[in-house]
């Protein structure tokens, strides 16, 4: 079947029940998207599908159309310079880092829908689990990324769709 991943059409030969996560990781070698729980709870596997954050670990690949644009952390921005990635670097957000691909994808998706989220909106929207406890810096990181966006006057457009 055909998938559009990070702007490139890819052909994969997998059973239809294979979750998107494992197609990305094991067929396409995109290991930036992580396995955490396998039941779409922890969010380590978060990717964008047509710009919207989705957990990929329990999403059968057969449900996707070739026309749907899948974006992983590797394709979030050229040179890893998405405002969220920049804010994350500025604040040294990651500790172990394992959940952070998903965390950043969730944050980027939130900001693309709502460039100026309130603190309460950030808290309720980002439901990814971090066991190191980076939450305070995640919160601040989203706020800083939001400010960067406001200064640029536009929502992030550099996603490799």
């Amino acid at each position, binding site marked *: 079947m055909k998938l559009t991943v990070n702007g490139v059409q890819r052909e994969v030969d997998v*059973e239809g029940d*294979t*979750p998107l996560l*494992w197609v990305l*990781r*094991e067929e396409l*070698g*995109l*290991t*930036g*998207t*992580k*396995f*955490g*729980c*396998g*039941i779409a*709870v*922890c969010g*380590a596997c978060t990717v964008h599908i047509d710009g919207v954050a989705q957990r990929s670990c329990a999403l059968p690949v057969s449900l996707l159309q070739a026309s749907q644009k899948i974006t*992983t*952390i*590797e394709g*979030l921005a050229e040179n*890893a310079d998405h405002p969220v*990635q920049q804010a*994350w*670097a500025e604040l*040294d957000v*990651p*500790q*172990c*880092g*394992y*959940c*952070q*691909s998903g965390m*950043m994808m969730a944050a980027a998706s939130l900001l693309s829908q709502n460039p100026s989220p309130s603190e309460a909106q*950030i*808290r*309720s929207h*980002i*439901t*990814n*689990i*971090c*066991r*190191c*406890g*980076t*939450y*305070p*810096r*995640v*919160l601040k990181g989203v706020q800083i990324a939001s400010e960067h966006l406001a200064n640029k006057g536009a929502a992030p457009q550099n996603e490799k769709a």
Partner: protein
Amino acid sequence: MKKPDLRDSTQTTLSRRSFLKSGTVAAGAFVFGFSFPLARPAFANAEATEVNAWIVVEPDDTVIIRIARIEMGQGALTGLAQLVAEELECDWSRVQFELVKPGENLSRGKVWQNQSTGGSRAIRGSQAYLRQAGARARAMLLAAAAEDMNVPEAECEVHQGRITHGPSGRSVSFGQVAHAAQRFTPPEEVPLKDPSEWTLVGKDVKRLDTRDKLNGSLVYGMDFTLPGMLVAVPKACPVHGGTLKQFNAEAVKSMPGVKHVLRVDDESVAVVADTFWHAKKALDALPIEWDEGPNATVSSDDIAKLLAEGLSDETAYIGNQIGDAKTVLADSDQVIEADYQYPFQNHAQMEPLCATVRFDENRCEMWGPTQVPESALATLAEASGLPQTQCEVHTMRIGGSFGRRLATDYVKQATLIAKQIPGTPVKMMWTREEDMAQGRFHPVTQCRLRATLGEDKNLKALHMRISGQSIMAYAMPQAMGPSGDPIIFQGLDPEGDMAFGYSVPNLLVDYAMRNTHIRPGFWRGVNLNQNALYMECFIDELAHASDTDPLVFRQRLMAKHPQHLAVLNAAADGIGWDTTPPKGVGRGIAQVKGFGSYVAAAAEVSVDNGTLKIHRIVAATDPGYVVNPQQVEAQVAGSFVYGLSPLLYSECTVESGRIKQSNFHDYRVMLLQDMPEVEVITVATGGFWGGVGEPTIAVAAPAVLNAIFAATGKRIRSVPIKNSDLMA
């Protein structure tokens, strides 16, 4: 400085090629004998010079600092490099790192010392020899530069990776003289800087290991791959101590991608396939019969009863004893008594357990996460049947660990699988369900506290009886002594890194060991977590019983413990203890000493319609010296996720002999929406080196529980509080 030793230096120069360097995507590329392209030609740079075991300098002035301890998120990697760089006087912007492997460490006479990373010891356990390593390398580079410029050493200064001759103004860089420096032997001990002279240690520098966590390029153990590699997904008997009776491999052998269905050991089976997904699907479909053994019917209630018996057992190990608490309590007609409990917890680190092992008759190697590289190497050797000299562990940065990978059970399992498929690299990956079932659990304990007050309202006698599981009895039985488990009394010890902070004229702290079949392990904070909760909540109860402010009640007991007291006062000042809280808001406070540091927390909470809201937490910590304040802040604030998840939501319970919780849907942990504002106060008084990763966890829960009492009058003695009705 001695004159150069002109021995051939190629050996040490070459040895660094086998190291894993930061910033690489193909982590396995050059550390193993497979012939696929190196990620960066720079790896083959034979011009790079090992100045000493910790420091490699490249001709372009890049300084590579070797990291022997394990980075699992706690930020130690950066702090360790800062300690070396402080004395080396290199240019911090040119610093990179590479990770040390235990086989190489062994073959070089443990030149990188202890790699084991636990007990909040990475920084405090390494700082002396790392600073010395930096200073000695600086001395070597200085001597080489002086020789190069033909000037006296005493007229030269080292700054930012350059050695400058003062009188002439001439200078050379580290990269220019590193090769020559290697021939000098520095003095055994080079005088170190006074802490007041530090320019890098104590400063907010960015982590060295962030970049590849931002673009998905960091290769964790779960991401690692080798040509021809297969993936194994194992399953062990869900009842600890049970065994694998049989399984029907034929039923799944024809499923897509399945290559092998193997008995791993007495208790586990694994499906080996071309991908994780194929292996997992086949494992789920595999008919397995277990012999669950004698614990097949054990429940949490049975365990609670077992522990409750220990609360009144006549015999117990004594941890701290002053005066005669038992007699004073027996003679008192006003004894205040309370029972507390703390459940099993799973580490639930984000990266499930995994390890890639390649075995053949001459060599066995592992690529994967461990907190104990030396033990992992020993496990690899034992399980493979090869001597340690023919084994190697390629250490990696870890996706969270919190103590889980102090155990090497999964290393053994991965090796036993790979051993059955010689020549083929096998990546063993656990599902989250396996990780939940086969954890090394935070031990379950109960506690009975009994006390009486004197006429002055001060604490006159206190008996604290802990009953429950010993981690050491399971994990390190060789460390059990005549006085029992040496770490059971963390935070309650008479002196040392875990010293009790109150003076009580009649004190007895003792322990009745009650072990269960659930395998315990070291869980971030270890026994300090429940000990501080028990003691600090009960102290709060006593304060209220004596109608004394909980801060004042503590302060009166702490005159002889000024360092504990200073941190307690810092937390109290931070929360504004002497002001009136907003209506409906209660304040609580707690303190303890653990892992060499003094810590305290104060919390503000309210309970509205039975729903708890934690408004604010102020955490104060005195670890003596602080290497990287912004990372200490991250550790302390982050530690509250580990401290408050068990308070609010998480627990592991036992049903039919097995852990009932199977994934994050029923082992609930804190999310961003639960995270209170945490204000971190660092009181670095100097003169000692305390740990940072763990101690503050322990004060989170009691501070909040005490605040709940202040807000509601309700005393909760059992966590998580999701099991308590805050309305009642």
